[in-house]
């Protein structure tokens, strides 16, 4: 069974302990308004187009079977609605102005890519599955099994919006989950991500019941996820978990913008969403005062 991979990144130092290889899967059921990885939202492959790199050679126009690539004297554009994500344009583009996101790979192929860096993982590093939503990728269980069989430290970054059976099946092969909590207020969660949080919270509880270590991750988006009530609820949530090591506070950064443009989407990035240093400290103190460890690394 093959999975659609957006990217495999090496020498990652922000996706779990030590030096890691991170596999980003394509496809996510949520639609966070601040999404910093918009290229991983759709399950289908798609093409990113970087205007600045285009030299107007026209190769992509001839290659495109659907007429999605337009290049005339005063018009250069890609008609997203016509694009079928076949990747023909990216294959002929010489400047990397067109780039395909989404390569189908079998579990063994992904494993082989991950193992090429095994010599560098030492005692702490390993593989991280991320996304998109890695637990929505068909065949993820097989990949997790293979990783474990090869003695890798396995970390999964999830937002928890996935089939509970997948969570139960995955848990035995995962050393640690980094579990995103977008918002603790059900209504706001729905507004901000398009989904109801019930399933997500149930999956979190299930992981904990199965005894796997988790770390909760909260993205601070100024005005959206910075209210005290939210952090009070995070503390309550933490208290219900036996195997949670603490909460990591992440800072919103409007870097999805350039990617959104390359995808032909409106730039959803907003400067005013960047949290202040004081807000971060405040949230951290609030958590600490309620006995929640605040993790930094």
């Amino acid at each position, binding site marked *: 069974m093959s999975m659609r991979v957006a990217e495999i990144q*090496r*020498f990652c*130092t*922000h996706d779990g302990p030590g*030096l890691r290889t991170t596999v980003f899967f394509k496809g996510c059921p949520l639609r966070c308004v601040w999404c910093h990885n918009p290229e991983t939202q759709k399950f289908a492959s798609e093409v990113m187009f970087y205007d600045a790199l285009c030299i107007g050679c026209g190769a992509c126009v001839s290659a495109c079977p659907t007429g999605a690539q337009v290049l005339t004297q005063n018009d250069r554009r890609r008609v997203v609605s016509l694009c079928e994500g076949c990747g023909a344009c990216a294959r002929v583009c010489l400047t990397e102005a067109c780039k395909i996101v989404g390569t189908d790979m079998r579990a063994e192929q992904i494993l082989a890519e991950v193992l*090429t860096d095994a010599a560098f993982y*030492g005692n702490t*590093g390993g593989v991280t599955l991320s996304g998109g939503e890695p637990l929505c990728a068909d065949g993820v269980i097989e990949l997790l099994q293979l990783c474990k069989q090869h003695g890798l430290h396995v970390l999964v970054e999830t937002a928890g919006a996935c089939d509970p059976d997948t969570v139960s099946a995955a848990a035995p092969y995962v050393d640690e989950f980094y579990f995103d909590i977008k918002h603790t207020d059900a209504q706001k969660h729905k507004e901000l991500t398009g989904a109801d949080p019930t399933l997500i919270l149930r999956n979190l509880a299930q992981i904990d019941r199965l005894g796997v270590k988790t770390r909760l991750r909260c993205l601070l988006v100024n005005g959206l996820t910075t209210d005290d009530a939210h952090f009070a609820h995070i503390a309550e949530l933490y208290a219900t978990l036996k195997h949670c090591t603490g909460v990591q506070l992440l800072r919103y950064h409007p870097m999805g913008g350039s990617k959104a443009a390359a995808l032909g989407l409106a730039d959803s990035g907003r400067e005013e969403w960047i949290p202040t240093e004081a807000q971060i400290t405040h949230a951290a103190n609030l958590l600490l005062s309620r006995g929640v460890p605040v993790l*930094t690394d």
Partner: protein
Amino acid sequence: MSAYVFPSAYKGGRPVRLCESTRHFAMESLQGKYGAQTLEVPYIPVDDVLGWERMSDHERYTAALDVLVRKCPVRICEGERVCGAATLGAGVRHQVPVAREGSILWPSVSHLTVDFGILVREGIAGMRARIEGMDTSSFDAPAMQRHDALLRTLDAMQVWHGRYLEATRDAYPHLHQTLLRVPMQPAESFAEAVQSLWFGFAFLRLGGNWPGIGCIDRLLGPYLERDLAAGVTTMDEAREVLASMFIKGCEWIERDTPRGSGDAQHYQNIVLGGTDASGADVTNAVSYLCLEIVEELGISDFPISVRLHDNTPKEFLRLLARVMRHGGGVVAVYCEKTVLAALRAQGYPAHEIYDFANDGCWEVQIPGKTYFSYMPMDFLHVLLQDVLHVAEGEIADFADMDAIKFAYAERMKQVASHACESILDGFVPAWREGDYTFRLQMPTPMIDLFEHGCAESGRGYLESGTPYRVLSPHMGGVGDVANALSAIEQLCFMEKRLSVKQLCEILRKDWQGEEQLALYAKHKLPHYGNGDPAADAHYAWAVNAFADACAPYAKGYPIMFPPGISTFGRQIEWRAHRTAVPHGYRRGEILAGNTSPTPGTDTAGATATVRSYCAADLTRMTTGAALDIKMHPGTLEGENGLCALEGLMQGFCALGGYFMQVDVLDVQTLLDARKHPENYKTLSVRVSGWNARFVTLDDQWQRMVLERAGYVPGE
């Protein structure tokens, strides 16, 4: 809180362990205070020496040295804990700082690590007794001249020592106390050992020489451990003493360095860690202190190399990662297993190889026993011109890759043998008659005191006095050779887009009219440095072919010709004669340095680059093959950043690397330093085997560093 901030790429800043006066001393030294003083007196005139015309070269040298030590400025810096200073400006310029009628008389010696242990263990008195007691009955007249010159050089050191005794007597009693014993007598304590080592080092530099120090922890560690056990000193005290040595090592930093390939390249190497002949790890308290000092002060004037092996202590690896994270390229690493295997294969006796150090950059040598010189050669040019005839002559066609590789390998043999034989013709005039004595270039009695074999043989360092004479052929351009071969294979034989001849015709026209194909070659073909097996196979083949080409000279000569890979900075000057290359670059572009990938082609990250580099059998590159890795500080934050650096080093060793220098650079900082050099006097970067303060690099070099740090011009 300290008043002094030493620059770091790490946002957490540097630790503070040394006392404020030592930090003040460091800041002044790094900002060029003592360098400026040194340049005030460039040399000592020796026009008054009587009988000069009748003297032999050696007599002139020692007579001039005698005047030099009596007349050179004596300098004692406030806050210093070791004494002695190389105070003459011509030394900074690689010359013996004496002159007649305003003309400098001799260049000086560099690219070597001497054995300062001789002075530390024997003292001047012991060295004198040993040399005087030597059986010279078989010496001819020239050998006796050299013998006498050694004793007169010891006299000079003693005179110079006497002046420091005098200068410290009243004002610096603590310095005076130590000088009363060393370096005349063997050192007994750590403080004495450091003083004695420094005195020998400063003496050689006073005479203009640029020696390396080598395995300082093996030399000084036992003294410190004895003192610590006896409660005579503490780690904090010892750190202050040793820091003084590091700070004084900056006394050649100039306030306004002429810009060029950068300063801080006086080959003052230090080597730490590693194993001994029994396989035991030798890391000791001094190893830690050295790294702690550079972690705090960011001093890059002593390029440090750590010998890594399977049992390198975890805490030491951690400290090493912490130092690396600050940037500046102060510390690089060897994979000891590879180096030892290479030295063994070269035929060095087993008991010698564990002492290895280097020439000041990274070319491995047995310290205190090796004459070293190397021959840099551009093997990309050999491929482009001698094999493919891109620049001129009739362009050849080739039926397949084997034909190209065969022709190239044959040409490599000719080039290597020409290089080896012409350097012999230059240095060893009678070698064809079987006499391998080096031609006398100049007297070197200062060096000879610290090189084993010279006193015993009555021959100088440059005259075959040392047990090992190394003339190392160096392959340059290997990353581009791999990429060129890979591109030819893809374009001409796999995709069959055009013939080799057609490709070469396009290259002759510098890709003009074929810009699309150039882009294709640059972006779409497999490149060395990305862990791509196809491209890496070409690299491994080229390394092997070069080793084979040097093999006829590997054994059977009393001189060694061990191969290595380097460009240092020559990729800049080599642009001038290189044509366009099959992997899409045009004439005049700066291509790969050392064993690194072509700039802009390595897109798969540091681990992939290391994997590619390790794909060749590097034990065949006896003097070394350096890989330069540049990283952004943001990837190295926190505990994970340290683990990542450790992982990178462990992988580098596990996969059989040779030498790796990691620099941590932030493009924004470098750009700001270009705009406001005055604010970045002490910001150092690893250039290409050595460290340099960024602001002392000229425009070309700064651009090269920036591009390696990921800067895209025009952004």
